[in-house]
């Protein structure tokens, strides 16, 4: 997000300028990430469907206590779907546990319209997942290398002095909750909530997905035994993988909502061409 002003525009209201917001590397890796994460999520749900239970610890199979189950059972009017977690069972027929596939109520954890491929096929789901996992890791490495070498992280994402004070954070939270987005000079830079969220995703959630994914691999466990200890077991890692994916989905939903609410066209342009329009304030306007 270098805030170099590109040019004044004739066809915009007076005082509107375009700044160069996102570098080409940020933009390309962002969109490749969208592709990778979408396919990883949907093929991941296909893989989950092969054994729709989560456990904690070193082992877990049918009969062992599960922390989450997406299941199906026979009901009075045909099969019914349910989700069971922490001893609480909620009916989810039609979506989770039992959904319609090719016109028939079918027992499957996530419905066909949410999985890659749509029909139940663990082998193909794994092919898609691991192919795009490599793609995602390489894309992420390019972004991280660029972010460090170009100063993108230090300049645009590291919170500034004073930004982390309680009063400043509270002020940002209140302004965000009221959907008041920064204008003018303030819009040249990310606000502290954006910075912290992006840092949590880039340095926390995305690496967590990779590490918990690797911990499920018996080959990697032999090569790097510390991973199993880090997550307290292979089945814990599988559960954390699922939870982290859910947090990423939550992030994407909020992220897209914020993009739309704070100016969909301007934000999309800045993520495609790199240019972001702001209204200059102060004496120059």
């Amino acid at each position, binding site marked *: 997000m270098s805030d170099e002003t590109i040019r004044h525009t004739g066809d915009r209201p007076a005082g509107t300028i375009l700044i160069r917001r996102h570098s080409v590397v940020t933009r390309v890796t962002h969109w490749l990430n969208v592709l990778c994460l979408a396919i990883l999520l949907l093929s991941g749900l296909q893989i989950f469907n*092969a054994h729709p239970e989560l456990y904690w610890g070193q082992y877990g*199979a049918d009969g062992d206590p599960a922390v989450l189950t997406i299941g199906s059972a026979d009901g009075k009017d045909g099969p019914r779907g349910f989700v069971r977690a922490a001893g609480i069972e909620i009916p989810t027929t039609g979506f989770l546990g039992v959904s319609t596939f090719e016109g028939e109520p079918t027992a499957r954890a996530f419905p066909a319209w949410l999985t890659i491929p749509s029909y139940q096929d663990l*082998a193909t789901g794994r092919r898609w997942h*691991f192919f795009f996992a490599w793609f995602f890791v390489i894309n992420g490495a390019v972004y991280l290398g660029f972010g460090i070498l170009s100063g993108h992280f230090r300049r645009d994402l590291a919170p500034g002095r004073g930004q982390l004070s309680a009063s400043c954070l509270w002020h940002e939270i209140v302004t965000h909750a009221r959907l008041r987005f920064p204008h003018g000079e303030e819009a040249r830079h990310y606000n502290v909530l954006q910075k912290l969220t992006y840092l949590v995703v880039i340095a926390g959630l995305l690496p967590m997905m990779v590490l918990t994914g690797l911990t499920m691999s*018996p080959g990697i*466990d032999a090569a790097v035994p510390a991973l199993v200890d880090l997550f307290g077991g292979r089945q814990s890692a599988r559960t954390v993988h699922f939870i982290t994916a859910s947090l990423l989905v939550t992030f994407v939903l909020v992220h897209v909502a914020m993009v739309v609410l704070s100016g969909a066209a301007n934000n999309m342009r800045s993520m495609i061409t790199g240019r972001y329009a702001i209204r200059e304030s102060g004496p120059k306007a």
Partner: protein
Amino acid sequence: MTKISLSRRRFMIGGTLGAAAAALAGYEALKQDDGTTVLRSAEQLTMRTQRLLQGRGALAREFSESDISPSFRVNGSTMPESDEYAALLDGKFADWRLKIDGLVSQPREFSLADLKALPARTQITRHDCVEGWSAIGRWTGVPLGSLLRSVGLKPAARFAVFHCADELEKTLDGSGRYYESIDLIDAFHPQTILAYAMNGKDLAVGHGAPLRLRVERQLGYKQAKYLMRIEIIDSFSGLWGGNGGYWEDRGYEWYAGI
């Protein structure tokens, strides 16, 4: 400035068209063979990377007695259906023999008593099913490497193929017979054993009596049960689907380390 942004725009358009063309080419390749060629390229990358990180000898985690799971799920076949296997089971496997042949200097047959008389290895390891569940059990058996040394491998030897007594899909041509293969790096790995005991008892029928393979750095579908014959070969292109195993012929990766 305008010139720069024009050339950048041109770069962006060119880049987008290029990416679109590459995507289309990829899509065409995908359509031609169900997407397997492109998607399968990741398998080689995964295997090479894991082998680089593991080396030949890195061991799978071994657990303590207290980590053994209370129940070990039986998966795949629970009981081979052939008359031959039924007869062997009736005789408590006294007539069962493990054949080792193919690219070996001295093909041999081992009885269960022969195997039990050889130096054994016991290990408590985690079994990870490709579906996602795990179970921990204690296995005792003969290291495969020591058997292969005793029969002597010919220079062309590359893979060990495990032919099993069970048939997962009833087929007339026998292509539903369970078989698996590993390469010689895994075959000579110290934890690769032919197990005849589990959790201190003779192997139960559900778990592959009288003998099953344990390749601890790979997923459950590699751990072939009901072993009848080990064939040493240089290529598995002539075996059934040509992909090196029952599940591999049905789309699963040959390298099952992930």
